[in-house]
C-alpha cells in the first residue's frame, strides 16, 4: 500500500543521503522524495512516498527515526491530509494545438508560463493522479519534456509536524 511520510530533519550536509541510503540498503521502495528547508533554516522538511506492507512501513518509520539527523516524523497517510505535486510540461504547440492546450490547461487549473512560436510550458499543480490524467489527455507525440516535483504533503486541521 502507498504511504506518505513527512520528516523534519536537521538541515545538514548529507542528511538526504542518509535517508536515500537507508532505503537502498534495506531494500525499501521510494516512489518519490522531496526536500527543502522550512521557515527555520536549520531544519529541512521531507515528504517521502513509499509502499509496503504494514510491517515494512513500521520498520521504515522506526529506521528513519533512528537516523540521528531525523528530528521528528509522521505518517501523513494515517489521517486526513493534503497532498500536492507540481509539474512543468513542455508541449509542442503549433496551429490548432495552441488553442487546445490552452483550453486543457484551463480545465485542469494550470497556467501557460512560457510561450514560443512552437512550444508552451504549462505549470500544473495537484495530486499525482491529476497530473497523470493531464499527461494522458495530451497527445503523446506533442510532449517534449515532463518535470515533476514529487509529492509534498501536510496533515489537515490540528494535526501537525513541528518542533
Amino acid at each position, binding site marked *: 500500500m502507498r504511504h506518505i511520510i513527512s520528516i523534519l*530533519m*536537521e538541515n545538514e*550536509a*548529507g542528511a538526504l*543521503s*542518509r535517508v536515500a*541510503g537507508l532505503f537502498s*540498503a534495506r531494500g525499501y521502495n521510494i516512489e518519490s522524495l522531496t526536500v527543502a528547508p522550512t521557515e527555520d533554516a536549520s531544519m529541512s522538511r521531507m515528504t517521502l512516498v513509499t509502499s509496503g506492507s504494514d*510491517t515494512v512501513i*513500521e*520498520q521504515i518509520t*522506526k*529506521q528513519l*527515526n*533512528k537516523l*540521528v*539527523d*531525523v*528530528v521528528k516524523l509522521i505518517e501523513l497517510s494515517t489521517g486526513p491530509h493534503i497532498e500536492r505535486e507540481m509539474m512543468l510540461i513542455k508541449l509542442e504547440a503549433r496551429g490548432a494545438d495552441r488553442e487546445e492546450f490552452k483550453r486543457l490547461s484551463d480545465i485542469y487549473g494550470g497556467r501557460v508560463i512560457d510561450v514560443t512560436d512552437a512550444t508552451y510550458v504549462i505549470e500544473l499543480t495537484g495530486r499525482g493522479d491529476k497530473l497523470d490524467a493531464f499527461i494522458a489527455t495530451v497527445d503523446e507525440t506533442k510532449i517534449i519534456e515532463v518535470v515533476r516535483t514529487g509529492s509534498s504533503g501536510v496533515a489537515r486541521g490540528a494535526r501537525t509536524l513541528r*518542533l
Partner: protein
Amino acid sequence: MELTGSQIIVQFLKDEGVEFLFGYPGGAVLHIYDELHKQNDVKHILVRHEQGATHAADGYARATGKPGVVLVTSGPGATNAVTGIATAHMDSVPMVILTGQVPTPWIGSDAFQEADTVGITRPCVKHNFLVKDIRDLALTLKKAFYVATTGRPGPVVVDIPKDVTDPNVRIPYEYPRQVAMRSYNPVVKGHPGQIKRAVDLILSARRPVIYTGGGVVLGNGSEALTRLVRHLKYPITQTLMGLGSYPATDPLFLGMLGMHGTYEANMAMHECDVLIAIGARFDDRVTGKLDTFCPTAKIVHVDIDPASISKNVPVDVPIVGDVVSVMQEMLRLLEASGGAPDPDALGAWWSHIEEWRSHHCLEFDRDSRVIKPQAVIEALYRVTKGQAIVTSDVGQHQMWAAQFYKFDQPRRWLNSGGLGTMGFGLPAAMGAKLAFPDTTVACVTGEGSIQMCLQELSTCKQYGLPVKIVNLNNRYLGMVRQWQEFFYDNRYSHSYMDALPDFKKLSEAYGHVGMLIDKPEDVEPALEEAMASDQLVFMDFITDPTENVYPMIEAGKGHHEMTLPPHMSPERELA
C-alpha cells in the same frame, strides 16, 4: 585558552578521559600526531594495520564498557578501518573513529589519499560527521562521544580535514561538558503499563524461557538479569553475544541457543509458551526458520532500540527501554505482587528440560589419539579457572569457545557475532589486555583467522602485551569445510590451506614464544606453561581436521530440527 585544531583534539580526548588511542599516522593527520608527541596523558598505540586499530579499540570497549577511540589518516587509512567499524556497528560497540581528510578546499578534487569517508562509512556507523570549521570541532567531538555511548551504542566517525588542524589557526577552547541534540533523545525508561503487562504474562507462563543477548552485556544488566532469573527460577538461554551476563555454571542456564546452541536450549525455545527476550535482536543465526520459531509462545521483548522490536518476529508485549531499568521495574512488580508462577507447571517443564539436558549434546570423543579442539577449550577453562578474557576469531573455534568456556561474568567473551569478522581476535585481545593488564587474555583462533591480522604480533611486542594465542590448527577453514561436508557432498573447494607457516618460528621471529602441541596429553601442560609465562605465547595446537561443531541447525530449519552429534541416536532428531 586559545588552541589549534590539533591541540583541541588532543585536549578534548584528555578532558573526555580517553586512556588509549589506537592509530596509525599519515599525511592528513600529521598535525594531530605532532600534538600527540608533546604529551603523555592519551597513550597512543601504534598498530600495524588500520583494521587492527579498530578491532583493538573495539576489544577495549567490549572489555571495559568505555568507548574505544581510533585515529587514522585519510583515504586508505579510513578504508582499511571500515571492516572494524562495520564489526563494531553490527555488535553495537561504542567507538569514536577520527579520520583525517584532505584539506577542505581539496575535497572532491580526487586529491592524493582522498576518499569520501563520510559516504563510505555511512551505512556502517551509528552516525558520522565531517568537520569543516575549527569552531565546530570541540562540540562535534562531544556529540560523537555522546551518540556513540548512549541509547543503543555504536561507532561514530568524525572526519577532519587537514586545514581544520592547521597549527597556525587558534581559537578559544573550552571542554563542552554537556551536549543536547534535539534530533537524538534515546528512550531509557520502559513504559510502566507495558512492563505491568509483561509481568502478568511472565507469571502466567507454564513453559517459560528467558532469552537474552548482547544488549544485557552492553547495558551492564548482568546483575539485574541474575536477580530476575533467580527470582523466577526460569530457564535462561543466551545468544553468542550475551554469554557471561548470566553465570554459565548456574543450573538455570541452558547454554547458548541458535545454530550451534545446545539441544536443551533449542528444544526449550521450540516448546515454550512464554518467551522473555531481553536485549536480543532475533538474528537469523538465533531464530532459524522464522515460520517455526517458538510456535506456541507469547513473546515479551525488551530492547533499547525500537527498530529491533518486531523486526524479524512479531512480539506480543514490546518494551522500549534500558534493560537495567526495565528489569529492575519487573523485579519490583514481581516482589510487590507476591505472585508466583504455577509451581507444578514449572516443575514439569524443568523435568522436561532435564530430560533434554541428559543427552549431553556437547559430548565429544575424549579418548581420541588426536587433539580434539573441544578438549583444548575445556583445558583452557580449567587452567585459567574460568577467569580469563577470551577473544575469538570467526569459525568453528569461535563456536567451540562459546560452547566450552563457561563464562560467569560479562565482558569476558569478546567476539564478532554480527558481522563475523575473521581477524578480530588478536587485535581485540590487545585492546582488552591494555585495559586489564593483570587479567589473562586468551585469543582463541584458527590458522585461517589468525593470518588475517597477524601483523599485530608486532604491536604486541612493541607494547609488551602478553596475550595467549590458542590456535586450533586443523589445516582447514573449518566452518567452511563443515558446510562443504554437510551440504556440498564433501567437495572441499578452497577450504584447505596448503603451505601454512611454521607458527612457532613465526612467533619467535616476532620476538614472542611459540609452542607446537600435537599430542592430547600435552595440551594442558602447554597451557599451564603458557599462562605462567610473562610473554606472549603462541600455542599452535594441531587438532583433528574432521571434527564438526554440533548440534547444528541448518540454514532454513527450525529449532527442533537440529543435526545432532553422532553419540545422540538418530531418533532423537525430531523432524
